[in-house]
């Protein structure tokens, strides 16, 4: 009996020792932070925290409640350990021309300083969530714009932006692919803004491959990204579409499609439309996804209209309680003025039974919405090319009927400061992201 009791006691003591060692192990990585944490927790809780010191497990157990704060910090840091690998290195480099950039916190091939100057997010490598790093995408877009510019002397308008190149007697080689390129200087001039940017010709070769950094046998360096964007009058990497009609677009016989052409932030939403629907009229990209708000909103509306249930008023059933649409398509077609596609000349009658509101949306309107435009212009087939349905959607009314913003991520969604992953909820996933940056400093 005594032996059994002794063995049980010994096991008990052994287990306690193991446990206390375990706690000590947990507390050791934070030893360096001890003073700082104590200081801060004193500020927050009015009590100085104590850390596990091995043998005083009993005291620790008694004061466990007080130490829950430090345990929380430990948990926060532990959760984030899996993501501590340098993101800049982790990102894949599909094209070897995409040279790594120094001082690039999010590894998107744009330096912090550049992102700061062009208003991008320093800690989000893929703001539009299309799995292409922002820098690569922006370089590709710049390449496309530069490609469309006339060479010096070929401009049709004295205010037109043009590119120039002065060939010199000599070539250099790309260090990546070995391509031969003239070693002379090149540049772009915007006479209207009285701005210009210059770079060696090899820079264009690298921009073509998605990189603003270049490395040739003679020249290596980086293009001045903010200046280049301003000269090109390009801010976002999205590919514009001809369907995205400007607010002052005029159709013969109908006049200007948009009732108001004032657009302070140039996001293709008129000021009066932004005022009526509650969007930020001072920011062209209020959700920072590097797509102008007007284009994004039009596409979101198109997607929501597509997903609405179709109700047949002649079918005998009761209409849905949520927003629905009724098909009023007709026997006839009309043409899109931009792409020439044929669409039905009829319309959807969209109803919000709760708000007792409705709007008629032509099929041609849906076509333009899907291309990112609230303005639309259709043409008759017979007589050919005569104006047919054209105008601009009443955005505030449409948004009310569709009850937008409806989903997390729709334009107008508000995110908490702690909602790091922008899923509209501050939860353990955000805590993990938070822990990832624990005690990281961005001080000058």
């Amino acid at each position, binding site marked *: 009996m005594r032996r059994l009791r002794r063995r049980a006691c010994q096991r008990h003591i052994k287990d306690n020792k193991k446990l206390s060692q375990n706690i000590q192990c947990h507390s050791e990585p934070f030893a360096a932070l001890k003073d700082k944490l104590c200081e801060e927790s004193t500020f927050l809780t009015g009590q100085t925290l104590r850390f596990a010191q091995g043998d005083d497990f009993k005291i620790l157990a008694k004061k466990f409640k007080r130490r829950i704060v430090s345990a929380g910090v430990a948990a926060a840091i532990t959760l984030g350990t899996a993501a501590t690998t340098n993101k800049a290195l982790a990102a894949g480099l599909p094209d070897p021309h995409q040279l790594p950039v120094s001082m690039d916190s999010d590894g998107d091939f744009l330096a912090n300083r550049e992102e700061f*100057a062009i208003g991008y997010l320093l800690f989000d490598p893929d703001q539009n969530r299309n799995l292409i790093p922002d820098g690569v995408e922006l370089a590709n877009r710049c390449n496309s714009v530069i490609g469309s510019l006339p060479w010096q002397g070929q401009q049709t308008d004295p205010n037109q932006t043009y590119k120039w190149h002065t060939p010199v007697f000599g070539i250099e080689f790309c260090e990546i692919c070995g391509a031969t390129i003239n070693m002379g200087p090149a540049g772009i001039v915007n006479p209207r803004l009285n701005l210009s940017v210059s770079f060696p010709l090899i820079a264009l070769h690298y921009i073509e491959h998605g990189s603003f950094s270049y490395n040739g046998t003679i020249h290596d360096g980086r293009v001045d990204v903010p200046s280049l964007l301003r000269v090109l009058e390009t801010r976002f990497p999205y590919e514009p579409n001809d369907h995205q009609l400007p607010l002052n677009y005029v159709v013969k016989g109908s006049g200007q499609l948009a009732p108001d052409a004032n657009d302070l932030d140039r996001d293709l939403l008129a000021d009066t439309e*932004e005022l009526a629907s509650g969007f930020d009229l001072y920011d062209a990209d209020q959700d920072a996804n590097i797509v102008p708000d007007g284009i994004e909103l039009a596409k979101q509306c198109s997607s929501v209209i597509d997903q609405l249930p179709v109700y047949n008023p002649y079918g005998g059933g009761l209409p849905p309680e949520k927003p629905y649409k009724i098909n009023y398509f007709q026997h006839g077609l009309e043409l899109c003025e931009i792409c020439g596609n044929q669409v039905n000349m009829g319309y959807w009658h969209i109803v919000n039974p709760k708000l007792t509101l409705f709007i008629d949306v032509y099929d041609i309107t849906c076509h333009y919405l899907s291309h990112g435009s609230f303005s639309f212009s259709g043409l008759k087939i017979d007589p050919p090319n005569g104006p047919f349905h054209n105008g601009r959607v009443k955005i505030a009314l449409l948004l009310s009927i569709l009850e937008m913003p409806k989903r997390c991520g729709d334009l107008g969604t508000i995110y908490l400061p*702690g909602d790091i992953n922008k899923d509209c909820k501050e939860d353990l996933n955000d805590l993990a992201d938070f822990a990832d940056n624990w005690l990281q400093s961005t001080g000058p």
Partner: protein
Amino acid sequence: MRKLRRAYQKNQRQNKRFKQRIVSAGVAAVITLGSSASISKAIGPDLPDPHQLSVKCDADADLLANKEETAIGYNVFRADQNRNGILDGVELARYCCEVVKELPVYPPGPLPDNIYKIEHALDGLEQCEVCGQWIHMGGWEIINRKLNLRYPDPNDPMERSFLPDLALHYMEHGSFDCQGSRHKGRVNIPRLLRVLEVRYPYDPNEHQLPVDGNDLDKDLLTDNEELSAGWNLYDADQNANLIPDGPERAGRCAEIIDALPVYEPNTPGIEEPYKINYFQKGIETCHICSALVNMGYWLVVNPKLGLSIQVPDIVCHYMKHGSFSFAGDVHGKGRIDLNLLVNVLGERYKASIDLGPYNLGDFNEDHIVNLLDLADFSNQWLVSTDPNENECYR
């Protein structure tokens, strides 16, 4: 023996579960940290003036609703963006009231060039429900000719044809809400700001001369200056403190130059920036306020970088008023070389304006992610802003 065995088994079970519990303890700690701040912020702050009626769906309790802050580009979760101890909504209301009161009235007289107001006089009074004051029940219609906009909107739920005098009374007391015997409701803030061409509760100064070059974000810094300095040329208020970047930086530069030590030319052994007095026997008059300043200049020197710049006294005068451009009767009209000035002031300038960057999780923008941020984080623990779940964020 049985008791001992049970005690032992119990103890063993507890030990095994300890590791599992540490994670839940962490989460508990996160929530605990925030508990001190969990009281609704909308109720928390003192409302010194009873006219400042609390606003529905106002996450930061600055008397601006979430939707309004989104529409005018303010921070939904920061009550006092310019850190002057006054709630943003209160400050904005008072400022808008001042602007409306100063607008020219038409008719009578010639049609004003841009923004003016038309009186809608009514034969009657209404009583303020807070202070009991009797106020004219009419108001003012505000017209912006350039933008072809008017206030109010024809569908405004409070009043379709004018901004009531009662609303101005409440705005003077720092509230966009008003409660009277005739008019009840809230001013359409985004529309009013746009019609007034006002964005911040910031009083511009006539010394802030318009810039000659391109200024995309209208912050009184030219695109060229912003490009050279690496500042954001698409955002007029980069540090979101409700003051346009140009006037803010001009003011800071003036403060730094004021605080520089004065030395004689060629004084040896100085490493930090200093200034040399080259004032002259003569005065110069400011074109705007007719203030008299010395016609001489300060030579600001950065010995470490080997750079220097002449800053005339008239320029200091304009910079104090928030402008890098100047107009005097000796130096004429001009603009200081901003990039050279910033380089000469060096680290002192950088230290004077905090433009970030701030890491993810650095909610209080103190450049380090620490327990203070964890406290802020826990404050919103499990709060949802999904438009489907929370109507305040719709």
